[in-house]
């Protein structure tokens, strides 16, 4: 048993080294812009760059719309599957897992061919259309995570009793979903939302192929042309991902652990 603990430490330390050396080196590198001293010059240049601000803002807005679209598509479906159509669960679960099977680049390639400017549904014919298509594409990418998060949330509440109680009090379907179900799974939805945000914010393939002024293509451009700024951007991106994951962890402490079923 003692040798077991020794090897566990060896594995743990080797793993920690592999993961922390690149991160520490990136931080160190990002501070080296001014010769001889450590400085935040690279961060100042990046954060002060109007293109950084514009593309970052664009991606944040795209992420927010992605989350809204994802919630609108996933919550009513997951709810309805639990309440009325449990026999469809395998089909819906299979579809939500498809974005893990079909690479993002293939999905966006399909969009470009199907929704080009002289197709029946010319999403790519206008700027707003292309923006909408990017949000739709992101919602597709986030589908597996969003659906799992919401479904896990629904599992912890008694959907049927809540629905019947709301119906007895005279609520319509919109009220039931918006004011009874959604608040009960809000923590799960927010977990899915932050994960979506982390995935979407620096996404490169879709944004670049749809020719959108998003943060991903900006990152690529800086990476190809600058030395120290990419390191600063990597640190910022890591901080954003870390922030999203921390929020999910904090939220999960507030999530109900099991259904409060009346026995």
């Amino acid at each position, binding site marked *: 048993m003692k040798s*077991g603990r020794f090897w566990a430490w060896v594995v743990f330390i080797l793993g920690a080294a*592999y993961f922390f*050396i690149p991160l520490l080196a*990136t931080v160190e590198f990002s501070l080296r812009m001014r010769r001889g001293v450590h400085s935040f010059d690279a961060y100042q240049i990046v954060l002060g760059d109007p293109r950084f601000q514009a593309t970052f803002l664009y991606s944040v807005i795209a992420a927010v719309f992605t989350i809204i679209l994802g919630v609108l598509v996933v919550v009513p479906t997951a709810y309805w599957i639990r309440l009325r159509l449990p026999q469809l669960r395998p089909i819906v679960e299979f579809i939500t897992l498809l974005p893990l099977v079909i690479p993002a680049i293939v999905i966006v*390639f399909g969009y470009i061919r199907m929704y080009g400017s002289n197709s029946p549904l010319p999403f790519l014919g206008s700027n707003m259309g292309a923006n909408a298509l990017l949000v739709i594409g992101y919602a597709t990418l986030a589908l597996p995570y969003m659906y799992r998060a919401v479904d896990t949330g629904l599992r912890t509440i008694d959907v049927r009793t809540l629905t019947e109680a709301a119906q007895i009090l005279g609520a319509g379907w919109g009220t039931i979903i918006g004011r009874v179900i959604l608040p009960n799974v809000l923590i799960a939805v927010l977990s899915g939302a932050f994960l979506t945000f982390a995935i979407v914010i620096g996404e490169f393939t879709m944004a670049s192929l749809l020719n959108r002024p998003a943060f991903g293509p900006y990152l690529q451009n800086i990476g190809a042309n600058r030395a120290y700024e990419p*390191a600063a951007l990597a640190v910022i991106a890591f901080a954003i*991902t870390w922030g999203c994951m*921390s929020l*999910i*962890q904090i939220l999960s402490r507030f999530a109900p652990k099991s259904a409060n079923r009346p026995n």
Partner: protein
Amino acid sequence: MTDLSLSNQTMAAKPAPPNAAAAFRLPTQWIGVAPFFIFALMFLILPTLYLVVGAFQGREGQFTLDNILQLVSDPSISNSYWVSIKISFWSAILGAFAGLAIAIAIVRGGLPGWTRSATLTFSGVASNFAGLPLAFAFIATLGRVGIVTTLLRDVLNINIYAMGFNFLTTSGLIAVYLFFQIPLMVVIIVPAIDGLKKEWGEAAATLGATQWQYWRMVVIPVIWPSFLGTVILLFANAFGAIATAYAFAGPALNIVPIKLYSQINGDVLHNPQLGYAIAFGMIVITGLANVFYIWFRTRSERWLK
């Protein structure tokens, strides 16, 4: 709500045969899931099918296998498939074993409690830290003027680039991909190891099993399907990844997603149908991988309830 209570009332007033009631309620049942299916059909299934059908069509829309055959006959394309499969395969295998070792160390290794929560939190972050920023981090570390490169050169007098190190080799990319593959393995496999019941270990010990026998005859058979399933998920994960590799070399690197990217951007192959065929090949490979994944997954869930 209103139509539902109506249907209940009619049924209560006049007990209809069950078949008729089911037929009456069918449309309202489906309205609830219609937005989801329309969304999935329009933005996931049809665009993919469009490419799949296109892969089997010639320029005038006639059926042909030429595009698919060209995947094999064109050496630059078939080579890009090989490189992609090699990178995905080895990064999945190495990532899986490294992730499994870390997971066992933190769950069963007798390490202090903080290592487990710290590792799981970090893995959640690192498994989502992919794409361009990951490439930037590795360039800052092991690029030509990276911190570790210069440290090794100045302190230990080792020039890794003179020794043939390069991100654009298969092994270089595998080393970078491990940064998100290992944490993904940890995140998925830790619950499976948690699922090993303490009673199994005690039962094995009661029956006189050695530690080695317990591992060989209990732990490995139980973890095996979920381990293998995750390996396949890691494979698909690496196979579709493009941004990290693109940040290292732009369009120069010969892996399938980058080949397709260049094709979409500039029709470099001068044949849009060939682009469809490349996309189709990617779907076939990740699709096959996931068929195995689902199969292993259902096998492992039997034990880990």
